[in-house]
């Protein structure tokens, strides 16, 4: 399998921009493009088997339920969870973290307790904890990163105290693109009786995730960054913890029985956390998205991506006008996600000029203000690559970036 064959699977990549240029899509960390097999799945479900799941006895409802539950099994197998009871479907990473912040918080977090996040978190892995802290009188603490953007896990044992309940960190930061040592972090936390949530929004895209090997208590991610349709998301949680947590949203299929006199009892896992009508046509696209991810583990594809990563990393580091945030060191790997700033050129200007050259990059704070503050910038430019991006595109990006910087300086 080669990159040309991959590109053929993604219809949007053949589109021309209004200016007539080819689309060079380097905003994959925001959302990926979707392959035809995912789009076909969505369409087939909408055209042929649309019915609400887990409810009716008719043929369509049974088919729709089968598809939905097949997606659960596909996700379970993909991340190596023990049981489908541990796979909760949500609308995305943000919803998954909010669910944990509410339900885990209700069961385990009280006044005087603390939650540890890192300085490099997406707002979605900060704000739900701040809201929890406000509700309960708990505290949110931050694990710093060093000048290369590496997590200071050496400080973690000191940051944890007897009141620490949970460590919530990203597998790969959406700004820094470094693979955090989540297994090590989990070990440190568990040795001290502290639970661990891993924000896998970027991690699931680039790493082969095995939750039992990491041993984290929660692993959360979104479908739309891993080639599925938007509003698909996963909350993996260890069964014993999920059992102890109260429901988050109420209504729909999350109940066992409802009585106005005797109150309500809740459905067993995973239904307890899936209130309301689910993403009927969307969630099953995770099956095809997972197949796509597995396809991208082909050796030829992996080697090609590594060459591309090395090329962009070297080009950015060799340019003394550019400051790269998230520098690989030792055995901390870098994925093809590059955030940088340029002395004397504003990130918005760079992104506007690159856009005119047909290159889609992200610029700004990237929903991660604390890490912007850490590096003393108001924003960055981010170029994030997927396996369908070519070395030619990478070279074109580096060439255009040089031209944009020259225009602005």
């Amino acid at each position, binding site marked *: 399998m080669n990159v040309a064959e991959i590109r053929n699977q993604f219809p949007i990549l053949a589109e021309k921009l209004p*200016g007539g240029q080819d689309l060079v899509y380097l905003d994959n960390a925001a959302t990926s493009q979707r392959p035809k097999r995912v789009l076909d799945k969505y369409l087939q479900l909408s055209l042929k088997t649309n019915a609400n799941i887990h409810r009716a006895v008719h043929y369509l409802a049974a088919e729709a339920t089968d598809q939905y539950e097949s997606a659960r099994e596909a996700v379970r197998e993909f991340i190596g969870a023990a049981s489908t009871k541990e796979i909760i479907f949500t609308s995305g990473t943000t919803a998954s973290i909010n669910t944990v912040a509410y339900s885990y918080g209700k069961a385990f977090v009280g006044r005087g307790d603390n939650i540890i996040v890192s300085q490099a978190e997406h707002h979605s892995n900060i704000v739900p904890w701040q809201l929890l802290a406000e509700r309960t009188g708990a505290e949110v603490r931050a694990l710093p990163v060093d000048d290369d953007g590496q997590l200071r896990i050496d400080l973690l044992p000191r940051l944890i105290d007897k009141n620490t309940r949970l460590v919530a960190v990203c597998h790969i930061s959406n700004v820094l693109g470094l693979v955090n040592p989540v297994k090590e972090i989990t070990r440190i936390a568990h040795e001290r009786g502290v639970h661990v949530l891993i924000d896998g929004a970027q991690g699931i895209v680039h790493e082969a995730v095995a939750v039992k090997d990491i041993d984290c208590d929660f692993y959360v991610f979104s479908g739309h960054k891993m080639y599925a349709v938007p509003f698909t998301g996963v909350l993996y949680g260890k069964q014993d913890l999920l059992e102890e947590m109260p429901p988050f949203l109420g209504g729909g299929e999350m109940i066992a029985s409802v009585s106005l006199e005797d109150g309500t009892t809740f459905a067993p896992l995973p239904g307890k956390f899936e209130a309301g009508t689910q993403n009927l046509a969307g969630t099953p696209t995770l099956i095809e998205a997972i197949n796509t991810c597995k396809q991208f583990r082909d050796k030829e594809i992996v080697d090609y991506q590594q060459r591309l990563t090395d090329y962009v990393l070297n080009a950015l580091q060799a340019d003394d006008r550019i400051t790269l945030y998230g520098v690989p060191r030792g055995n901390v790997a870098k994925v093809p996600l590059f955030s940088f700033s340029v002395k004397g050129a*504003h*990130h*918005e*200007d760079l*992104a*506007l*000029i690159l856009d*005119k050259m047909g290159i889609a990059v992200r*610029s*700004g*704070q990237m929903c991660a203000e604390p890490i912007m503050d850490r590096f003393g910038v*108001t*924003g960055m430019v981010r170029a994030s690559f997927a396996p369908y991006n070519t070395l030619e595109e990478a070279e074109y990006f580096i060439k255009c970036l040089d031209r944009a910087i020259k*225009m*602005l300086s």
Partner: protein
Amino acid sequence: MEPTKTIQEVEADIIENFSMFDQWLDKYEYLIELGKNLDAFPEEAKTEENLIKGCQSRVWLDAKASDGRIWFKADSDAIITKGIISLLISVYNGRTPAEILASDFSFIEKIGLRENLSPTRANGLVSMIETIRKRAAENNN
């Protein structure tokens, strides 16, 4: 100094200037030049109150009403935005509130910079235009 041309006349001049560029590159280079030549913004006016914060660029806008006219000074940390600010100031500085409120700001679109004003760009420029209109409305008696 009170402007000698009407808003429509200044807009027509800008549209004519921009019609000479058939390449986006020339257009952007011109905006960058305008941005670099924008009158310096007084440091003491860079207050929280005058700051229009966006996810992208920051824009500072200082508006003062005197003698029935509104006087604008503005700045941005991004140069292309600053170039567009320069255009806005050349059109709206020293106008009466009624003149500003009667204007539809459509010249930005006519010179092919509509995409720079899209709210999805989340920059300070959209808010800057809103603020110009708001100040005009406040002073319109």
